[in-house]
């Protein structure tokens, strides 16, 4: 098995301590993420990845700006997005911004292109949701051309054409690029076509149901005669020294966040039984380092993953709780998982 990479992901949720009189302190929430990225590097985490949202409950709408700040206070950790909503952005701009972060970070920048599981960026930037699929298809197509870092000539329907365009800055060793996928087989096939690694967001249910997707990626690569690429997953978690404590935190934070999102979509709230099932056999990694490590090792083996990212600090956890997860993940969980995988 190739070396597995371990990441931490956040959307810049607002820590409980930073909500004063129901007013989130967004600036401080962003600075907190910079601190946490430093901590993640110190405890041996391979990747910190930030997600783009345009909602009241998340402070990060420009991941790469935050990544640039992190670049200046770290020197090993990979600085990623998870995800950059390419559909409502401009591929040239995205490339330019990440190439800039890559320069500041000495080649540690990584962009993850996604369609976005939220759609608030579409009306915000003047895109039509009716073009959801086509926007992503065209823009990934253009982005894959830009990755060659040569003169680009490109035509599409939803963005002005480029004729021999040269984009700057050039990177030293190319820009590391992933595709973030929610569960659409089309996206898996698309990634194989462009020879890009795939990150699956596995938010609920048994991860084993994604096994056929891994097979799909393999077969698609064979069909397009491209090199099979690494596959990773990202899932939510809370780690604490005490199992009950971790579950309490997850209940008031992750569950509350999912219920909020559910309400907007008309889903009923998560029951205690569902919550328990997600922890036991589903896709929430909640508990002591030992419990969480076992579960991560199992999913890596089952799906033959090259990367596992834990979404930390979801909902309104306190700074102490967020930092406990980061510390325990780096200091205990990752070494334990590596041991378990070596067995």
């Amino acid at each position, binding site marked *: 098995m190739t070396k597995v990479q371990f990441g931490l992901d956040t959307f810049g949720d607002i820590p409980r301590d930073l909500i004063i009189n129901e007013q989130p302190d967004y600036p401080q929430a962003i600075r907190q993420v910079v601190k946490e990225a430093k901590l993640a590097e110190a405890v041996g985490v391979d990747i910190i990845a930030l997600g783009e949202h345009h909602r009241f409950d998340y402070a990060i709408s420009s991941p790469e700006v935050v990544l640039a700040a992190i670049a200046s206070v770290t020197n090993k950790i990979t600085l990623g997005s998870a995800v950059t909503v390419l559909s409502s952005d401009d591929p040239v701009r995205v490339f330019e911004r990440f190439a800039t972060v890559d320069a500041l970070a000495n080649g540690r920048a990584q962009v993850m292109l996604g369609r976005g599981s939220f759609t608030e960026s579409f009306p915000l930037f003047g895109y039509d949701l009716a073009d959801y699929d086509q926007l992503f298809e065209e823009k990934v197509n253009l982005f894959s051309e830009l990755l060659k870092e040569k003169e680009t000539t490109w035509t599409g329907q939803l963005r002005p054409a480029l004729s021999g365009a040269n984009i700057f800055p050039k990177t030293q060793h190319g820009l590391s690029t992933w595709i973030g996928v929610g569960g659409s087989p089309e996206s898996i096939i698309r990634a194989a076509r462009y020879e890009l690694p795939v990150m699956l967001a596995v938010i609920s249910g048994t991860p084993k149901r994604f096994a056929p997707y891994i097979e799909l990626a393999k077969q698609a690569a064979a069909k397009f005669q491209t090199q099979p690429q690494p596959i990773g997953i990202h899932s939510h978690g809370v780690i604490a020294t005490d199992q009950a404590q971790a579950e309490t935190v997850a209940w008031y934070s992750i569950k509350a966040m999912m219920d909020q999102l559910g309400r907007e979509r008309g889903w*009923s709230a998560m029951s205690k039984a569902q919550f328990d099932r997600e922890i036991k056999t589903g896709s929430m990694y909640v508990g002591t380092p030992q419990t969480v490590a076992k579960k991560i090792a199992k999913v890596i083996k089952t799906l033959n993953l090259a990367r596992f990212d834990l979404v930390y600090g979801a909902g309104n956890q306190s700074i102490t709780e967020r930092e406990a997860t980061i510390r325990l993940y780096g200091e205990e969980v990752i070494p334990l998982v590596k041991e378990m995988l070596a067995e």
Partner: protein
Amino acid sequence: MQTIGILGAGKLGITLAQIATKAGYQVLIASSKDPQAITLTIEVLAPTAQAVTSATAIAKSDVLILAMPLSHYKQVNRQAVKGKIIIDAMNYWWEVDGNRPELLDKTISTSELVQAYFKESIVIKALNHMGYHDLADESLLSDTANPLKKAIAIAGNQRKSINVVKKIIQAFGFDTVVLATLHDGIRLQPGTPAFGANVAEAELRAMIATTIPGEFQLGQHN
């Protein structure tokens, strides 16, 4: 053996194809694109199902499942579906369907709108309230299923057709809860307690019984 046609090859359509093939049905699945666009996906994810055109899925199936975005149902040729049972598994989803006030009318079920279009078919609302990943995990045909059988609600106006759908859903590995009319399907839509429900029969029955149509509210996007 019956043949099930599925229109829609998204997450729900593919999940239903997986379950239906495991249950021993012939499955014909179609997306809005050329069948070739989904051939590889179907080959890998639901190997014994067949990717076809929607015309073929309609013509060659005994029962048709609609698993596409709700706002697209009028793209289906209703003449071709004449006389068939249609399982409506669709829900209004503003992110996909756009802002459509007519689909938010709290006094009618969206399945009634679907029935009004497919005048000469029998529309039964079913398989709409459980998320696709739960359907995959909870079908007793799944290798990761919980030992406790979960229930799927069915709403329709015609006893005979309801029984046909009931049999299919039981074959999929679920219990069923039958609602008296298609109109009652309103108790299964986004915003109701039953929407998203992944529970056993008695609990689903209780959720549906305590829902007061018109009182639920689809959450607002911020």
